[in-house]
């Protein structure tokens, strides 16, 4: 047990290290901050809600930097794409927060927020699942025909439409190998920022699919570049929370120590897999978070009478962290076995890469 003087509670510090570790793995692998998982976990550990948000946001900023450093080494960050997006993201977050305040004044913030979460996450889950399943099929088919697939396989044609919009200035993203109007990047940043600000999260789970399916970046680039974005927007959020007295730095330190190990594992794990594998895990993360948000929505719509709905929402959210870690670890284990010529399940070869 540790006495958190700023938060004003006593809580087991190892739980914070463990949470940092698990969210570090997931965040480093799919490029999200993991706020939607950490905040409920901290509340369960006894932190007050406002403290949980502040600690979470501050730890996300630090953890994203750790993962960004590693993704930079692996060449997964396109600095032009990331920096062009930052302005739009910050503007969007500010608009999202104002939208949330407007909804709060109308007294519909809770229900609107949860409905919006469920619709956005469910929509992204369905689209990602369908597209990734098609890509998976294509890789398997190509392999049967003796064609070795690359690290990235995507069947969506949507990015081509956006890449062909001829509005100047057009930017060349060398690492991502993209040529696209800067306005598309700024707009994507702004729209995803609005959602992030409105939903009160870092926005990684919206930005990663947007970078893949709208901008046309590869999944690895989307993950790395999004972590850079999260470091910037998380830093801003952490500053605001700190000023409001919502941050206990020692709790942040415990979480970062765990996240340091987890984020390394999650980031390096992306080296072993193809783009569709990351997209699968991202989509599972979305559907599990959707179930949690849906249960909370029903709980609110039924006048907060059925406590078991709220209980299961938290259980789902916490279970999600461990399920995703298990899934990512299994994938890496299978990838290593596959590289050494050992037997692996049928679905694995299409999702992992044999050589660096």
């Amino acid at each position: 047990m540790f006495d958190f003087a700023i938060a004003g509670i006593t809580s087991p510090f190892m739980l914070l290290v463990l949470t940092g570790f698990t969210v570090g793995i997931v965040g480093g692998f799919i490029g999200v901050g993991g706020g939607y998982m950490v905040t409920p976990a901290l509340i369960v550990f006894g932190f007050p809600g406002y403290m949980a948000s502040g600690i979470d946001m501050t730890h996300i900023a630090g953890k994203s930097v750790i993962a960004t450093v590693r993704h930079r080494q692996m060449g997964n960050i396109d600095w032009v794409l990331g920096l062009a997006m930052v302005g739009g993201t910050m503007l969007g977050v500010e608009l999202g927060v104002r939208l949330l305040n407007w909804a709060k004044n109308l007294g519909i913030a809770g229900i609107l927020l949860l409905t919006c979460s469920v619709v956005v996450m469910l929509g992204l889950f369905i689209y990602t699942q369908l597209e990734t399943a098609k890509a998976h099929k294509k890789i398997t088919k190509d392999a049967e025909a003796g064609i070795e697939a690359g690290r990235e396989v995507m069947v969506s044609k949507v990015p081509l439409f956006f890449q062909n919009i001829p509005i100047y200035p057009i930017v060349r993203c060398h690492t991502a190998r993209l040529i696209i109007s800067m306005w598309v990047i700024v707009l994507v940043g702004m729209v995803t920022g609005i959602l992030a600000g409105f939903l009160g999260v870092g926005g990684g789970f919206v930005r990663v699919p947007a970078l893949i399916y709208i901008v046309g970046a590869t999944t690895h680039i989307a993950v790395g570049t999004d972590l850079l974005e999260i470091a910037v927007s998380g830093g801003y959020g952490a500053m605001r929370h700190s000023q409001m007295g919502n941050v206990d730095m020692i709790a942040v330190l415990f979480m970062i120590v765990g996240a340091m190990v987890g984020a390394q594992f999650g980031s390096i794990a992306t080296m072993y897999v193809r783009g569709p594998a990351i997209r699968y895990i991202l989509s599972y993360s979305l559907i599990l978070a959707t179930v949690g948000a849906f249960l909370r929505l029903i709980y609110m719509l039924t006048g907060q009478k059925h406590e078991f709905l709220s209980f299961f929402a938290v259980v789902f959210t916490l279970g999600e962290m461990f399920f995703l870690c298990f899934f990512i670890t299994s994938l890496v284990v299978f990838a290593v076995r596959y590289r050494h010529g050992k037997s692996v399940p049928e679905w694995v070869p299409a999702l992992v890469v044999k050589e660096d």
Partner: protein
Amino acid sequence: MADDQKKRGAVKFVFWTALAVVLIGYCWYSYSSGQMVNWYYYKAKTDGYAVNANTFQAATKEKPMTLEIGKFNPIEGLQATPVKKGDRLPVNTNGIISTKDLEEGKRVKLEGDKIVVTVPMQVKEAKGFKYKDTFKHKGIETNPWSGVWNVLWVLSLGICLGFSAEGLTDMFGLKLKKIVHHGH
């Protein structure tokens, strides 16, 4: 060539790890000595009594806890120091029992030179997983520089730990190759 890379990795690892240790050590020392709390929870925003709310978390209506009033700095255990709005807070303070709360007498009562607490400052109405917070450090003004300082610290630690881990893998000859990407 490979040995050169390992040597550079080792230097990188040692340098960034040393910096990370300094940052962590500083945070740990300033927190455990009460300096950080004192610096963060800066001034009183209301008239009342500065307290360490952690010390009376177990207070209940059946088993109230009593705080001794006096000029304490630092506050150790069940002690309360009178403060006026704008006063610098004593070391170890993380909450203020406001004069208004004392006058209401619902959660805390003034009995001579002692304060009797029946409801801790952070009340969690726990029904399953539902919590209701009532303690929001309302009486405390945080240091206006805390935002910049905390963010600088956390980002610096992130950079140090990130490069330290990179140095570690390089040191063991596990330097990761850059992925060559092909856009859609």
